[in-house]
C-alpha cells in the first residue's frame, strides 16, 4: 500500500503532463462558432434600418430558397471591405438580407450609398439582441439560411474574394 502511495504523485504528474502537452499541441482556436448552426433561426422582428429597404423578420426568411443573412454595421471597417464581395454575390443571383448592428438609419443610408446596396431587406438591431440570439459574436458575419429557415453555415469575419466559391457552394448545398 505504502509503495503504491509513494508512486502516486509521479503517476498524477504524468497525467498532468499529458494534459499540458495536449493543451500545447492543440491548434489555437479563438473562433467562436454559433451553436445554432443546423438549427432553425430564432424568431425576431426588426424595424427597417435603411430608408429604401423593407424591415426584416425571421418569418420572412422562410422562402423555400436559400438566402444569405449578413450581419454588418455602418461603423465597421471590415464591413466596407466586404461590400464588393457581397455585390458580386448579389450579381450571381444570391438573395441577401442583412441585420445592421447598433446603427442609425442615416448612417446606414450613407454607408449603402457609398459602398453599394446588395441587400433585399435590412433589419435594425439597435441593442445587438438578435445578434446574440443567433450566436454571432462580431461584425461582419454571414449566415446561410436554407429554404426552411434553418442556419446551415456561418462565416465569421469579412467575406474575401477567395471565400466566394465556398459561400456559393454552401448556398447550393442548402437547396
Amino acid at each position: 500500500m505504502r509503495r503504491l502511495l509513494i508512486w502516486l504523485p509521479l503517476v498524477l504528474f504524468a497525467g498532468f503532463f499529458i494534459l499540458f502537452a495536449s493543451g500545447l499541441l492543440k491548434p489555437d482556436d479563438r473562433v467562436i462558432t454559433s451553436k445554432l448552426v443546423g438549427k432553425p433561426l430564432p424568431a425576431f422582428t426588426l424595424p427597417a434600418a435603411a430608408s429604401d429597404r423593407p424591415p426584416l423578420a425571421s418569418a420572412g426568411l422562410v422562402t423555400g430558397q436559400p438566402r444569405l443573412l449578413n450581419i454588418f454595421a455602418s461603423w465597421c471597417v471590415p464591413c466596407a471591405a466586404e461590400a464588393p464581395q457581397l455585390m458580386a454575390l448579389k450579381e450571381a443571383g444570391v438573395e441577401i438580407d442583412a441585420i445592421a448592428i447598433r446603427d442609425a438609419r442615416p448612417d446606414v443610408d450613407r454607408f449603402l450609398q457609398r459602398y453599394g446596396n446588395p441587400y433585399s431587406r435590412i433589419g435594425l438591431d439597435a441593442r445587438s439582441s438578435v445578434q446574440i440570439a443567433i450566436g454571432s459574436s462580431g461584425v461582419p458575419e454571414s449566415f446561410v439560411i436554407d429554404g426552411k429557415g434553418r442556419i446551415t453555415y456561418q462565416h465569421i469575419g469579412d467575406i474575401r474574394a477567395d471565400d466566394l466559391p465556398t459561400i456559393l457552394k454552401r448556398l447550393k448545398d442548402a437547396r
Partner: protein
Amino acid sequence: MIAEAGLAALWLAAALALLQLMLSGIGLAGHKPDLLGAIRPVAVAQGTLTTIAFVSLITLFMRSDMSVLLVAANSHSMKPWLYKFAGTWGNHEGSMLLWVTVMGVAGAAVALFERALHRETHMATLGGQAAISLGFYAFLIFASNPFARIDPPAADGQGLNPLLQDPGLAFHPPTLYLGYVGLSVAFSFAVGALLTRQVDAAFARAMRPWVLAAWILLTLGITAGSYWAYYELGWGGWWFWDPVENASLMPWLAATALLHSVTVLATRDALRAWTVMLAVIAFSMSMVGTFLVRSGILTSVHAFAVDPERGTFILVLLGLYIGGALALFGWRVGAVREGAPFELVSRETMLVVNNLLLSVILGLVLIGTLYPLLTEAFGHKVSVGAPYFDRIAGPIALILMIVMAAGPLTRWRRDRLGEVSRRMIVPAIVALLVLAGLAILAWGKIGVLPFLGLIVALAVGVASVAPLWKRNLRRTPLFTWGMVIAHLGCAVSLAGMASDSAFTVEKLAAVRPGDIVEAAGWKLRLLQISPVAGDNWTALQADMEVDRNGGSPVILHPQSRFFASPPTTTTEAALLTRWNGQLYVVLGQEADEGRWQVRVWWKPFVTLIWLGGALIALGGALALLGRERRGWLLKWRARAVTA
C-alpha cells in the same frame, strides 16, 4: 556594450551552474563532503553574475536603449523613471531574468549562510539548485533572450501596458518572485535529503528558515497583488480566481502546509516523507503556474506574449524537474524511516488535519484552474469562475480556520479532548454571541458563507491570541508571538472578506454636474468633469464632493485615463479610507448629453483583508527572527563558554 555584458554574465552564470552541478555530483558519488568548500564560492559567484545580468537589463531600461529589442517593445523614452525601472520585469523576458536572478541569489545565500545542514546534504542541495537554474538559464538564453539587439534601433519604444504603469509594479512582482522562486530552495533541500537519505529533525530545522522566508515574501506579494488589482482594475473586487492568481495561490497553499509540517518534523521528528513531498510540490506549483501563464494554454487577464515554443520549453523543464524529483521520491523515500508516532488527540494530529485541508483546497483550486483545459481536450469549452471556487474552497477554508484556532491550544504528542474543548470555551462563547447578534440584525440578508465567515473570523480571532493567556508576555518566545500574530492575521483577513461580501453597498448612477448620488449614508455630489494631463497620459477627471451624515466634505478625483502609447483607456478609481471601510468611486463613460456614469461602492472593513495579509507576513517575520536569534544566542553562548 551593456547588453553584451549582461548576456556574457548570463552565459558565465550558466557555465558556473554546470560546474556547481558537476562538483556536487563528484562530491556525492565519491563521498567527499570537503568538496563543499569548493562549491560554495562557485554558487556565490553564480549569484553575483545573475545579479550583474539583471542590473544590466535595468540599466538598459533606465537609459531607454532602443537598440535593445526588449526595451523597444516594452518601454518608451517619455515614461516616468519609476516605470522604466519597474518595466524591466513587466514583460516575459525581463521577468524570467528576475526569476533566474532570484534563483541564483537564493543559491548563493544557501551557500553562504546555511550552517546547520549536514555537509553532504548541503552539497546535494546546492547541486539541486544548480540543476534547476541550468534549465532556466537555457530557457532564457535560447528561447527568451532579454538582451537581443535590433538593427536599426527603434526611434522610440512601444510603451508599457498602462495597467502596469503603477507603483504596484515596482513592488508586487519582485516580492512575489522572491517567494515563488525562493521555494526552489526548499525543493533543492528535499532533493538533497532524498539523495543522501538524511530526512530528520535536524534537516527540518535547517530547512525551516528558508521556507519561512519564501513564504513571508509570497504572502506579501499576493497581498500586494490583490490590493493592486483591487484599486487598479476598477471592478471593486480583490480576488478574481484568475489563472494567474491561482498560480500564485497554489504555491502559497503548499508552502503554508509545508511550513506547518516542517515544524512537526523539526519538533517531533514525524511526517518525514510528507514534508519532503510538500517541499517538492510547493516549488512544482510555482513552475506549473509559470507554465500555465506563459504557454498561453489558459487565457488570463495577465497576458504575456504567448509563444508555443516557449511553452514547450517550459513543459520539458517541468517534466525534467518535477518528474525527476517525484521519481527520486518514489525511489528513495522507502529508505526514509517512519517518523515518531503520536496520539490521535495531539498537536501533531491538528497539524496533519491542517495539512490535509490545505492540500484539499490546493487540489480543488488546481482542478478548477485546469478543468477548462481538460474539457477542451474532449471538445467542450467551459470556463470555471468565482462561483465554483467560492463554493468549493470557502467551506473547507472555514473548517481549516477552526482547526487553526484549536491547534495551538493542543499539546504536542498527547492531549485530552475535554481539555482542548475547555480551552476553546471563550472562543465558542464569542462565536455564539456573534451568531446571536447577526441572527437578530441581518438574518436572511446576507449569504451563508459570509455569515459563517463573520462568526468564524471573530471566534478564531479570539482563539488565536489565547495561547498568550496567562503567560508572561515578556518571556514568551518571539516565534510564539509570530504564530499568534500570523493566525490573528488570518482571522482579520477573513473578517474583511466576509464583511466585504456581506455588507458592500453598490450604486450605479448617471449624473450631471450638480447631481447627488447616495449610497450607504454617503452623499456624493458631482461638481465638475475636467481634463487633466499627466506625464504620459491625459484624463477626464471628476471632482466629487463626498460627505457622510453631514460630516466635513472631502473632494475625490476618480479619473478615466487615456494613454497614447500604447493607446489604452484605464479607470483610476478614487478611494476614501475610513476606519470602518472604504468608499470606492469609479468614473465611467459619458452616458448621454452631459450625464456621466458613476459607480460607487461602500465596502465596510474591506481594508482588513490586506491588513490581515500584512499581519500574516509580520507573524512569519517574527517567527523567522525568533528562531534565528535563538540560534545566534546559542552560538554566542557556546563561543563564550569555550573562550
